[in-house]
């Protein structure tokens, strides 16, 4: 077995909270910043590692990854699964060299290409042609390589007619297609792909997924992070399961997905047990449905509360509901019809929605929040679970939930 990736004792620690202590003088900060790298260099010279410092209960730091060990052979497509904050993205960032490990060691055998975002470095003023070259170069392709694949990329993106038009005049769909097309033609020995398939239309996503599958079949190694367990199953033969920054398992994809789903049940909570930060300044205080559990077909109430330390305008806000396999079931659009939500930096924002009848078949659903405001634009998946139970029916025994799909229709028989 030839290895493509070997990870030993890998750890990454992040600082949380205030970045700069307010009472320190800027001059102190500057002199410290000047001295720090040289101190570290000097310590390194003396052979004293700094990486083991600050172990244990340091409230200002969190370990995004800790004692991670695994090895991936060449030619394998491996999916990385785990809840939010399990360390998936941090792992990819270390492997793609965007950030350094705090401890441990990573060995990569082969040219690495990473795709953590579609269209990195796209410039709206440049034409489609120019952006293909620029984006390709940023992703690590040689000019000759881009030139060779150019026609293929353009055909793949279906933008032949507009190739010499500035990208700012493209529709958003065309831009995404072009960006995907460049990325899909990246052919390093090791390909790292983050949740990039979350945007774009489904048909085109399938096309890209297929293209990336070809990459794996060519004997290259693919590491693929996604919340979408279905695409992980399509693309990968094995999966790496992370939880709380540690490896829980590395094995056949179906086994790991089942273990992940079982583990998620263990984490289930129907209301937040502590505030969840959405950005540096904005926190989610309350979030969830009542009653708990909700009987299928019965009225339910959704309720949330946000706080923010700065004045904030929220343009988009929606509750996003996924089923146990992370297929999207639907959203509750929370936007107000006439004006965006405004927060003044002091009062909390409370939003409440009444559902006349919960239209879902009994089971466990995952509830997340999508938000776009002045300081944050993200989808926070898996915040809480929504437990839906069967409505008591005295006249007839219902079919099993597993064969009834997702939607519970509200109808009468005549």
């Amino acid at each position: 077995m030839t290895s493509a990736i070997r990870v030993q004792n890998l750890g990454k620690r992040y600082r949380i909270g205030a970045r700069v202590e307010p009472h320190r003088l800027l001059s102190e900060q500057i002199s410290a910043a000047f001295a720090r790298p040289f101190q570290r260099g000097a310590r390194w010279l003396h052979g004293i590692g700094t990486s083991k410092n600050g172990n244990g209960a340091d409230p200002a730091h969190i370990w995004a990854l800790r004692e991670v060990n695994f090895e991936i052979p060449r030619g394998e497509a491996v999916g990385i699964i785990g809840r939010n904050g399990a360390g998936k993205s941090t792992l990819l960032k270390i492997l793609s060299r965007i950030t350094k490990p705090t401890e441990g060691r990573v060995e990569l055998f082969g040219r690495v290409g990473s795709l953590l975002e579609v269209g990195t470095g796209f410039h709206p003023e440049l034409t489609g042609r120019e952006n293909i070259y620029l984006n390709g170069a940023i992703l690590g392709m040689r000019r000759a390589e881009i030139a060779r694949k150019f026609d293929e990329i353009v055909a793949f993106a279906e933008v032949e007619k507009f190739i010499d038009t500035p990208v700012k005049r493209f529709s958003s769909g065309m831009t995404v297609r072009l960006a995907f097309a460049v990325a899909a033609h990246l052919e390093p020995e090791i390909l790292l792909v983050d949740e990039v398939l979350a945007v774009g239309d489904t048909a085109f996503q399938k096309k890209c997924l297929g293209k990336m599958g070809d990459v794996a079949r060519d004997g290259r190694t693919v590491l693929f992070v996604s919340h979408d367990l279905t695409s992980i199953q399509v693309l990968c033969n094995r999966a790496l399961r992370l939880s709380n920054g540690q490896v829980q398992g590395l094995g056949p994809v179906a086994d790991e997905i089942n273990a992940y789903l079982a583990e998620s049940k263990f984490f289930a909570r129907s209301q937040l047990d502590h505030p969840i930060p959405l950005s540096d300044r904005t926190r989610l205080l309350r979030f969830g449905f009542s009653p708990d559990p909700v009987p299928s077909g019965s009225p339910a109430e959704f309720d949330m509360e946000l706080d923010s330390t700065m004045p904030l305008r929220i343009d988009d806000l929606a509750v996003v509901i996924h089923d146990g396999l992370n297929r999207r079931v639907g959203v509750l659009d929370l936007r107000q019809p006439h004006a965006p939500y405004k927060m003044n930096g002091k009062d909390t924002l409370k939003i409440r929605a009444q559902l006349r009848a919960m239209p879902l078949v009994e089971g466990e659903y995952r509830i997340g929040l999508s938000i776009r405001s002045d300081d944050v634009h993200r989808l926070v998946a898996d915040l809480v679970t929504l437990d839906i139970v069967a409505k008591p029916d005295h006249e007839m025994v219902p079919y099993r939930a597993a064969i009834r799909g997702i939607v519970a229709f509200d109808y009468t028989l005549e």
Partner: protein
Amino acid sequence: MDLVSQAPREVPSQVTLTPPPHLILVPETPLWNLPLREIWEYRELLLFMAWRDVKVRYRQTVLGATWAIVQPLTAMVIFSIVFGQLAKLPSDGIPYPIFTYTALLPWNLFAGALTRATSSLVGNAHLLTKVYFPRVIIPVSAMVSSVIDFGVSFVILLGMMLYYGIEPTWRLAALPFLLLLAFVAALGVGLWLSALNVRYRDVSYIIPFLIQVWLYASPVAYSSTLIPTQWRWLYGLNPLVGVIEGFRWALLGTSWQPDILVLLSVVIVMVTFVTGLLYFHRMEETFADVA
């Protein structure tokens, strides 16, 4: 659980001709271990980024590249009126407009390159957190467009030399060296400031002051012969003094002669450049975490 039937995967039997690169990522790398080879491998990206900056800069402007000329010409007119006509500063027997314009060219190269380099990392933060490449490419490529501006405004200088009847001499051969010195000086300071700017945004507020102070500490509007002899050595610590007086000497034939101070400038520039490169290299691994 079988959601989608999976095609059987053949065992790849691919023969690799060249051994794939072997990369080791560890927390600490030696301070002096500069990724020079890697920077060379990414040279195409440097060209693409520079080309992007140049291309985008004058899009949707009416005057386009003419802006590269407008700025030094305006400064020349103002300096000629204020310092040449009103203050009547001596200009070594050279017509004042061309005397100051010759100095403005390397000065603008330096100041423009320094300003662009300093804000470059913050301006490209989205790249820092999404993709890896040697980070030093960002400030260097940002500086390239200042060289293009220099080229454009240099054509005007040639026209002015023709107008004033100043003939070029063999001294012109010194220009590439002086140009390189100005560029490396901006690069050295730019590496320090751009890396600092990622963590301390105060730097972007300091830059305009720094540039202004530095302008008056350099012989752009006046001749360095005005500096009292006993202070010349201190004044000469500013590497731009050697560059600017060197430009005048090479193009206009002023009485200034290259001396030991030029050597001192070279040493200072090299020290700034090397320490800047090391500091930048030390800090670049944290850019993605703080940008």
